[in-house]
């Protein structure tokens, strides 16, 4: 089986903990993420899932633990790597999709400029090439070419989120962190976004870690699931297995609390 032949995971997390004074953010989290896998992290607000995501993505410094990423130089701990190297990773191999598009976009820069920024950040200096790539990516997220010189302030919520995704994926990252990517969007817009994400994940062979409280989203997007409660991981497994045959009391409560997913 071809993928099993890969011997190193893309991301290996070991003993990751982060507390805010006496309050626990997340505690002793560990897992492997393999190339092409999409992992969902679910839990209620305050369960530590966003803290965990921020620690993984290098936005927060964890108190203990390692976040090893598969680089050209083998598995490297991104927690202890130099800040320039980590920031470089953040605009090449990694991408981060924020819940609120305005946090991940430059609202005073055109859609094309938003997509082009990551290219220019890694040294692209040919205007027409940058523009061509931006057009291609806007098309892939279903934003018409004639909107590329408009600012995101003129876009709907769904369009902004799609623009944020284009901006993140244009440099061909290998790992995408997503924080409630469909939160705050209309149901119909959510569906469109989910479809888009699924297609992109498959076509680009992306790995992704998606934080959400929406079990329907992970059901459709995630291969695997991690359930968090009070900063602890209480259950992990295949998405459909965790949702259909939850083992932990909290997961059972979570699953039974939502309308049929």
């Amino acid at each position: 089986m071809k993928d099993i032949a890969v011997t190193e995971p893309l991301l290996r997390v070991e003993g990751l903990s982060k507390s805010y004074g006496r309050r626990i953010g997340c505690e002793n989290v560990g897992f492997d993420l393999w190339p092409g896998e999409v992992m969902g992290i679910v839990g209620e607000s305050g369960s530590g899932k966003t803290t965990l995501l921020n620690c993984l993505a290098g936005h927060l410094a964890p108190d203990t633990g390692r976040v090893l990423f598969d680089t050209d130089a083998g598995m490297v701990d991104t927690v202890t790597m130099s800040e320039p190297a980590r920031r470089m990773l953040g605009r090449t191999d990694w991408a981060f999709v924020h819940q609120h598009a305005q946090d991940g976009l430059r609202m005073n820069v055109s859609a094309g400029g938003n997509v082009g920024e990551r290219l220019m950040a890694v040294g692209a200096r040919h205007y027409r090439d940058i523009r061509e790539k931006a057009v291609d990516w806007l098309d892939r997220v279903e934003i018409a070419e004639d909107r590329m010189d408009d600012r995101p302030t003129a876009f709907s919520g769904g369009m902004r989120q799609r623009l944020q995704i284009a901006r993140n994926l244009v440099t061909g990252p290998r790992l995408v962190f997503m924080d409630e990517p469909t939160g705050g969007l209309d149901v119909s817009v959510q569906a469109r976004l989910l479809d888009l994400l699924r297609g992109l994940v498959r076509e680009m062979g992306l790995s992704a870690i998606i934080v959400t409280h929406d079990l329907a989203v992970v059901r459709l997007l995630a291969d695997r699931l991690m359930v968090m409660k009070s900063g602890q991981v209480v259950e992990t497994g295949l998405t459909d297995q965790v949702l259909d045959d939850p083992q932990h009391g909290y997961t059972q409560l979570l699953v039974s609390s939502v309308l049929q997913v």
Partner: protein
Amino acid sequence: MITVENVTKTFTLHNQGGAVIPVMEGASLTVAPGECVALVGASGSGKSTLMRMIYGNYLAASGVIAVGDVDVARAAPREILALRREVLGYVSQFLRVVPRVPTREVVAEPLLALGMARADALVRAEALLAQLNIPERLWELSPTTFSGGEQQRVNIARGFAHEYPALLLDEPTASLDAVNREVVLTLIERAKERGAAIVGIFHDVEARDRVCDRVIDVTGFTPARVA
């Protein structure tokens, strides 16, 4: 191809006083390549539970569930994911898809996941949809708006898109008319001919008798209920 040995399953209801409900005990069966085995038993006897355990959808408490060379009861998620992608297909009674995705894409998806070229995957998907009498004008629409019978056929097309060496079929002929029922039974026979090992649940006795080589009554695996 599929071997189930001494599998037990319990449900623990943590939110209802931690009640532990044993639902299966000592379940064992073997399915050879090219063989189709029907699970029978009264409603609630555990046919679906056993099938879901084979698919890895339910966790087995103990025992061995071997599909090819993977023990589903113990495998890591990514091993099960690879197994589902390449070896083990499942036609459930329910269609679960991202809304808005056209039917053609839904059916082609298992092939795309295997890395088949898009054009080839769509050709194969269209052939199956045509075979299952889904009108061509529906192919570009999402199956979420379809009737029960149409959704069922889309599910079957999806399950047969890739030639899985092992297949699980949950009521594949329910809610189908005679013509489409015949198409599905033919698909199952073809799968057997190419050597697929199949486990199925059929309430349709005629269909069961036609395609199944053996019948296993899961009532024998049902633990004595403690009232």
